[in-house]
C-alpha cells in the first residue's frame, strides 16, 4: 500500500516516502514518471535515491538449504547416513535386519569396514585404578540422641541400684540373729515359777564403754557406736537359752511361726524385710547399720520373743524410746508385767563376752 496521499505532490519535504514506495513497487507508472522527473530536477537527491536501492534485501536466503538431508533419511544405509547407522549399531539400537544391512554396507568397502571397526572400538572404559580418596570420610555414623541414650543408661542403673538395695536390705547382716535360729522359738519355753530376778543395775554395765551419762543418749548416737568398735568383735546367738525359765510361757506370733517353719531362704528373707520395714522411723538408722550394735541385736531379739502381738510390741517399744539395754529391759518388763533380768559375763580383761536379757535375748562373743 503506498505511503503517500494520492493528492500529494512530490517535493523535497516528502521525497523519502516516494523513494520507499518506488522500491516497494507501490507507485503507479504515472507516479514513477513523476518521481523520475523530480530526480532530474533535483540531481543532488539521486545519490540518496540509489542508497535506498542498496538496502533492498534479495531473496538469496531462500537459497540456503540443509545439505545433509540424505543423512537424515532412514530405511537404507547410504554413503550419506552410514555414520548414523554405525553409531546405532554400536549402541545396539538396530533391529536384526538393520544390523545385517549395516554389516553388508561395511563389507562393501575396506574403508567403510575400517570405519565400522573403529566405531566398535569407541567404547570408553572406566579406569578402576581411579578411586575416590576420601571415601571413609564421607560415611556417616548413626547418631543416637544423647538424651535418650542417657535416659536408657540411667533407667538401667536405677533398676540395678534398686535391685541391689533390695537385695542387701533383705540379706541378713553379719552377727544379726536369725529368727529361725532363735532357740526360744525352736524349743518350748517353761513357765516362770517366780518373779524374775532384779536387774543388777549397779554391777552390770550395758556396754563395755557405757557410763551413766551415755545411757541417756539418743538412738541415733547409739546406732553410731558399732563404727567405734573393733571389726573383729562378733557376736553369736547361743544354741540354748541361758535364762529360758525367766519368762512366762507364751505362744509364738504367726509371723514368728512362719519364720521358724520356713526353711525357704527367700521367704525367710521376706519376713526379715517385713519385720525391719515395719520398725519405726526412729530406728531406721539402726536398720541400715551394716554391723548392728549390741542394743540393736537385743532389741531385735526381745521383739521376737516377747508374748505380745508384734505390732503392739513395736508400738509400745517405740513409745518408750529405749536407748540402752537397761532401758529396753525395763520397757519390756513393764508391759509384760514381769521385771526382765539382765545378766552379763566378762572375761579376765573385763570385756563383755555374754549378755542375756530375760530369756528373750542372749549373745555370746565368739
Amino acid at each position: 500500500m503506498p505511503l503517500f496521499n494520492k493528492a500529494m505532490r512530490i517535493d523535497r519535504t516528502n521525497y523519502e516516502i516516494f523513494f520507499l514506495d518506488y522500491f516497494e513497487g507501490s507507485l503507479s507508472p504515472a507516479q514513477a514518471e513523476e518521481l523520475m522527473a523530480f530526480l532530474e530536477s533535483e540531481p543532488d537527491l539521486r545519490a540518496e535515491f540509489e542508497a535506498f536501492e542498496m538496502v533492498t534485501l534479495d531473496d538469496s536466503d531462500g537459497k540456503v538449504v540443509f545439505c545433509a538431508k540424505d543423512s537424515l533419511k532412514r530405511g537404507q544405509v547410504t554413503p550419506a547416513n552410514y555414520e548414523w547407522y554405525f553409531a546405532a549399531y554400536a549402541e545396539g539400537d538396530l533391529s536384526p535386519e538393520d544390523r545385517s544391512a549395516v554389516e553388508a554396507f561395511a563389507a562393501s568397502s575396506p574403508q567403510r569396514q575400517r570405519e565400522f571397526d573403529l566405531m566398535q572400538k569407541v567404547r570408553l572404559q572406566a579406569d578402576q585404578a581411579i578411586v575416590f580418596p576420601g571415601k571413609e570420610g564421607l560415611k556417616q555414623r548413626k547418631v543416637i540422641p544423647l538424651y535418650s541414650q542417657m535416659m536408657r543408661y540411667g533407667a538401667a542403673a536405677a533398676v540395678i541400684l534398686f535391685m541391689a538395695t533390695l537385695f542387701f536390705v533383705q540379706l541378713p547382716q553379719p552377727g544379726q540373729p536369725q529368727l529361725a535360729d532363735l532357740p526360744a522359738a525352736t524349743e518350748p519355753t517353761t513357765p516362770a515359777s517366780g518373779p524374775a530376778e532384779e536387774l543388777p543395775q549397779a554391777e552390770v554395765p550395758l556396754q563395755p564403754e557405757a557410763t551413766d551419762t551415755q545411757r541417756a543418749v539418743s538412738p541415733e548416737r547409739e546406732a553410731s557406736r558399732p563404727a567405734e568398735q573393733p571389726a573383729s568383735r562378733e557376736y553369736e546367738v547361743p544354741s540354748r537359752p541361758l535364762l529360758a525359765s525367766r519368762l512366762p510361757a507364751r505362744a509364738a506370733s504367726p509371723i514368728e511361726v512362719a519364720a521358724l517353719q520356713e526353711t525357704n531362704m527367700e521367704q525367710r528373707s521376706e519376713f526379715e524385710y517385713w519385720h525391719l520395714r515395719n520398725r519405726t522411723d526412729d530406728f531406721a538408722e539402726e536398720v541400715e547399720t551394716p554391723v548392728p550394735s549390741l542394743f540393736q541385736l537385743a532389741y531385735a531379739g526381745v521383739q521376737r520373743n516377747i508374748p505380745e502381738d508384734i505390732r503392739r510390741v513395736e508400738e509400745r517399744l517405740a513409745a518408750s524410746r529405749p536407748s540402752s539395754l537397761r532401758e529396753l529391759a525395763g520397757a519390756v518388763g513393764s508391759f509384760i508385767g514381769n521385771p526382765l533380768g539382765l545378766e552379763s559375763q566378762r572375761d579376765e580383761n573385763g570385756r563383755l563376752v555374754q549378755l542375756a536379757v530375760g530369756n528373750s535375748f542372749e549373745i555370746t562373743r565368739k
Partner: protein
Amino acid sequence: MTTAEYNQCVDRHADGVYRFVLKNLRDEDRARDIVQDSFEKMWMKRDEIDGSKARSYLFTTAYHTMIDSIRRERFSTGMNEVAHNEHAYHDGYSDLKEILDEAVARLPDIQRSVVLLRDYEGYSYQEIGEVTGLSESQVKVYIYRARTTLKNYIGSLDAVI
C-alpha cells in the same frame, strides 16, 4: 534412606561419581570437591530419598554441580587459557585408551557427559536424560555425535592404530 544405605551408597558409587566428574573436569581437586558436595547434599536430603534412587540422585547432583563449576570456571578463565588446555596433549600415545581419553576431552561438554554416563555407568538413554535434564532423543543424538567424533578422531591417527 537409612544411614546404612547411605554408607553403602558411598562404598558403591563414590568411585564412579569421582571418575565421571574427573573425566569431565580433568581436575582432581575440583572433582573431589564436587563428589563431597554431592554426598553432602544427599545426606542432607536422605529423609526424602528412596534408597533405590540414591545412585540416580547422586549422579544428577554431581552432574549439575559440575556444570555449575564449569560455567564458573569459564566465566573466570580467559579463552586463551582454555584453548591452550584443549591442545595440551599431542604426543606419547601408547594405546587406544589414551587416545580415547584425549578424544573425550575434546568433546563438547554435553556430549562428553552423556557418553561417559553411557559407557562408564551403563545408563540408559532415559536415565541419562533424568541426570542431565535432556530428552531421550536429545541424549541419543548427543551420544551418536560423540561416537562419530571419537571414531573420526582415532581414525585420523593412523600411525597408532
